[in-house]
């Protein structure tokens, strides 16, 4: 029996389970809010084209309006100025084999529950490695914060001095780049902390990751259902010509034994 036969058998038998890490695309799902004088991320909008009526008697369909970075979405290297010249840095150019791979989940939920500005530091990563072994090259690293349980204004958590949400420090990202990861993902609206503008460099996850040709995933959920390691992440963005990112359905394959 081939590996793939074994996999489909395991999927059918429940030895491998599928976890959906995706939020519903909904007009009220928060998007990043920038200062009003900047261009803004389009909200998800859906307009009926026909609904089994005079506009199309036997079918229903919608036109959608959204940004590449609306909802659960993928960031390609060319999203950031530091990755603008990266070869194959647009979503349509990324090799298909990069879109499925191993995933490590670092649980920061206890810290994020205490501190909205909780930082993922190199120490936390090294602790994780001490417990679970080294992060393999080509792995996705996801920062679990349980932030996805928040809704509405609490999700962006905007204050007069900007948003407050957990994220990685510049050194944490540098360490992950040393491990040659495939990409970094979070439950928040961006891969960077809400206050990430005040790091050096500003927005280190975006700046350093994309500058090194790595990918980002954000607005993930259900990370609590993933094991620290051993799961497989399936994250193929839409094949948009020159796209800087894309909403997508993110799935994880986990061992059937884990919760």
């Amino acid at each position, binding site marked *: 029996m081939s590996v793939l036969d074994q996999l489909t058998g395991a999927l059918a038998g429940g030895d491998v389970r599928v976890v959906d890490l995706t939020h519903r695309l909904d*007009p009220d799902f*928060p998007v990043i809010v920038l200062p*009003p004088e900047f*261009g803004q991320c389009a909200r998800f909008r*859906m307009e*009926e084209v026909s609904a089994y009526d005079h506009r199309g008697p036997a079918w229903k369909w919608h036109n959608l309006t959204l940004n590449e970075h609306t909802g659960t979405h993928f960031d390609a290297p060319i999203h950031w100025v530091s990755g603008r010249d990266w070869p194959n840095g647009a979503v349509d150019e990324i090799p298909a084999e990069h879109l499925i791979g191993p995933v490590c989940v670092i649980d920061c939920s206890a810290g994020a529950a205490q501190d909205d500005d909780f930082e993922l530091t190199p120490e936390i990563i090294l602790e994780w490695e001490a417990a679970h072994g080294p992060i393999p090259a080509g792995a996705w690293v996801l920062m679990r914060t349980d932030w996805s349980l928040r809704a*509405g*204004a609490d*999700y*962006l958590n905007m204050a007069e001095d900007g948003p407050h949400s957990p994220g990685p420090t510049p050194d944490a990202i540098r360490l992950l780049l040393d491990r040659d990861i495939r990409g970094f993902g979070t439950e928040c609206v961006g891969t960077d902390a809400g206050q990430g503008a005040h790091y050096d460099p500003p927005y280190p996850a975006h700046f350093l990751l994309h500058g090194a040709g790595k990918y980002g995933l954000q607005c993930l959920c259900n990370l609590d259902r993933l094991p620290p390691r051993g799961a497989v992440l399936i994250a193929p963005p839409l094949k948009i010509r020159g796209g800087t990112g894309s909403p997508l359905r993110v799935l994880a394959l986990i061992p059937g034994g884990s919760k």
Partner: protein
Amino acid sequence: MTLTGPKKKDPQKRTIVPTLPPATRSRAGLGLSVAAAQGRFALQHCAECGAVQYPPRDACHACLSHDLCWKDTQPYGKVLAETRVQASPDPYFRERLPWRMGSVRLTAGPVVLAHLVDVRRGEDVQVELRLDRAGQGVMIARPKERSDDMEDDPVLRAMGTHPKHRRILISDATHPVARPLIDALFAAGAAHVFAGVPEMWRRPHGVSALEGLENVSLLPLDVTDPQSLKDAASEIGGKVDILINTARHIRPGGVLGQDTTAARDEMEVNALGLMRLAQAFGPGMAARTADGVNSAAAFVTVLSAHALSPDPAFGAFNASQAAARSIAQTLRAEFAPSGLRVACVYTGPTEDEWHQSLPPPKVAPKTLARSIVDGLQKGLEDIYCGDVARDLAERWRSDPGLLEREITGGGA
């Protein structure tokens, strides 16, 4: 006479179907409607012999000259005779009998036929041109001193859009006008205000100040989101007597330098949003224009006066305003059979962050609120708020080409 609030409806009775007074006018006669829509009292004046005439005609009744122009006229006079109409074959008047009519000699000369409101034969009166339910200008004679109770008169109530006892939907509570507008509406006797909140998930600025206000309900409503409109209309669509659209997206910038993404947002909110609002709430309102004391009366939208002629510094925004104005005009035609009035409130630059660097005069939210409510009380279709808007509209009426050159600083 004081109008009492409506009783709860008997759900076993059919809602009264709107009827309209006669709507046909000659081309000359439409001049009265144009003046009434703006709240002006204007009559035809002969440019050759100076005669003032009524009813409007194609030639001067004194010298047969065709050179007639509409001019604001002294609105005072004396009631010569009055009558009480007890029978009428017209369904609209039959439902409202008896109806008091009279002839009034104006100080300007002509004798006019007017609906009488709180006045009798021999009294000195002020005559106003008001839009009736058919959207045509008619004369009403009322006491020289205007009173709030006057608006309770069944004749004025039947033709007007007064907020008293009515339930009002303000489409976007994040507009700076929302709070003063709510206050002004309640001061005018409004029964309830529904205030739409776009992107409720963000807890937008200014909305918390409206939480907990008596007779104010906040509800999620976003004119760019068809589902939110559907949800809101299915909940309160049968209770909206007056809709005031305050949704506005504005960014400075002309056409060459402006992003189409910003322009698209402006079109989405300002033009298509108006269209979606009308589609969601309009049919329900149009069916209720004869529904007793709190019948549906008006659909109002706030526009920049530059909808008439653009200010290049806000070129893309003004394109959305011109589009919105055009949509409002079509709505006026589409709502005409129901008698639901469509009013456009034209404002000059408003006092907000997007006009911060502009010198005064700018329209304060309170001023805008007062204009909207005043326009509703008078039943206007064209409401001009502030000197900038009034002046711009005046110049636009007299010569749009000249106005364009004045704004842009000349031709090429």
